[in-house]
């Protein structure tokens, strides 16, 4: 299964929660109202704004959809080679 590097920029995140609605297994909001990254609903410690997660094709599509839905484009997704998949450059 492919691995994705998922990263939230907390400085851009405004807590709109679009990502939480679309991909709650990957994103939740912390007490500062910023999205952090989970691994299939789990929070391997410490809580983090970025994480490498192993995903199925279907999960990958949904994570990209979540990133696309973010109104501040605060979510960045890279593939294993470090190529930025979203936002498209």
């Amino acid at each position, binding site marked *: 299964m492919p691995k994705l590097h998922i990263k939230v920029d907390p*400085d*851009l995140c*405004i*807590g*709109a*929660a*679009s990502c939480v*609605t679309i991909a709650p297994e990957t994103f*939740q*909001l912390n*007490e*500062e*109202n910023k999205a952090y990254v989970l691994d299939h609903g789990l929070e391997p410690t410490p809580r983090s704004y970025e994480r490498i997660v192993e995903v199925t094709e279907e999960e990958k599509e949904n994570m990209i959809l979540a990133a696309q*839905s973010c*109104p*501040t*484009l605060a979510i960045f997704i890279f593939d294993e080679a470090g190529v930025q998949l979203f936002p498209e450059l």
Partner: protein
Amino acid sequence: MRFLIIGAGVAGTTAAEELRKRDKSADITLVSEEHHPLYSRVLLPHYLKGKIVRERVFLKKESWYTEQNIEWLTGITCKQLDPRNKFVGLSDGRELPYDKLLIATGGEVRAVDEDVRGVSYFRTLDDADHLVQLLSEQGPGSHAGIFGGGFIACEYLNIFSHFQIPTTLFHRGAHFWTRSLLPEAGALMENHLKNHQVELQANTSVTELKGEKELTSVVTTTGEHAVSLLGVGIGIQPDFSWMREAHVETGVGVKANAFLETNVPDVYTAGDIAEFFDPIIERQIQIGNWMNAMSQGRCVAKTMSGEKTEFRLVSSYATNAIGLEIIFVGDVEKAAADHVHLVGSIESGGVTQIFERQGRVVGGVMIGRNQDRKVVTDGIAQKVDFVSLRRQIP
């Protein structure tokens, strides 16, 4: 199949994108009042404060429309709808036929009566560019005014605070969001803003603008105040005229059922303009936020292309006012609630309001209490009663 979409904001553009995914050969036309490709209105404050460069606000490139084979008409509005013969009349005089029509026109800002240089609105990228220019002209001794007590007023507060411009805020009600907030929540905001050197003038309306070439002061119901810049955020006012002439039912928005279908066959609506039946909170409601608009665009496209899909989302809106976090979730209209319960206190620096109707929770407002957001959101979705919800809040 000819799909025609009036309005190319996030609702209309997302609908066009989803329709193309589902139907490779349909004719899709997107009518845009603005000349820019899709951009994020939510990113405009970040652009104004210099957190991102201007080109980062765009979500689509100009070439995207051609690549998707979507006909993109810019600088054009709709003027007429003939639902019997199924065509619309556009502002450039053209008539366009449709099989399925989507109304996603959003809202126009409500304006003050006069216009003097120095007055700013905050909805479009052009508005933001104008404000960038105005901000660059402010010097020492500048004083900003804000007229309004809602989400746009919060954006102006943050922008003027960022540029360290002394600010006076005039709002018509006793406090912010008078239709949603209890006096305690209003007082919490007031204290916070006063602690951050914002001068507040409650129960005040701006009645006159003074200045020959440029704004020098505003006259309000309580006096005259010297300002060189005035940010206006007093709500939106959509243009319903062509819809009403075609007997499309409207209220505060375009009325629709839970499938975003209007009363007129083959005419749909989505985004800020839609007043749709929300099956979670169980009433017709108009909601203006990004997530709602984007999700409705995607949902209505499914229905328009033949897969009838009910729209379900617990909507939320998050902002902050000079560091104080504010979150609205679900139905937060006091007049539509049977009870509004208060959790927390002014002294503790945070209050949560829980809106209850017919024995169940339908909405929540959190000010300085982010930690309650998830419990309240889940409670609305699961239609729990207040007592069960209250037990989950420490």
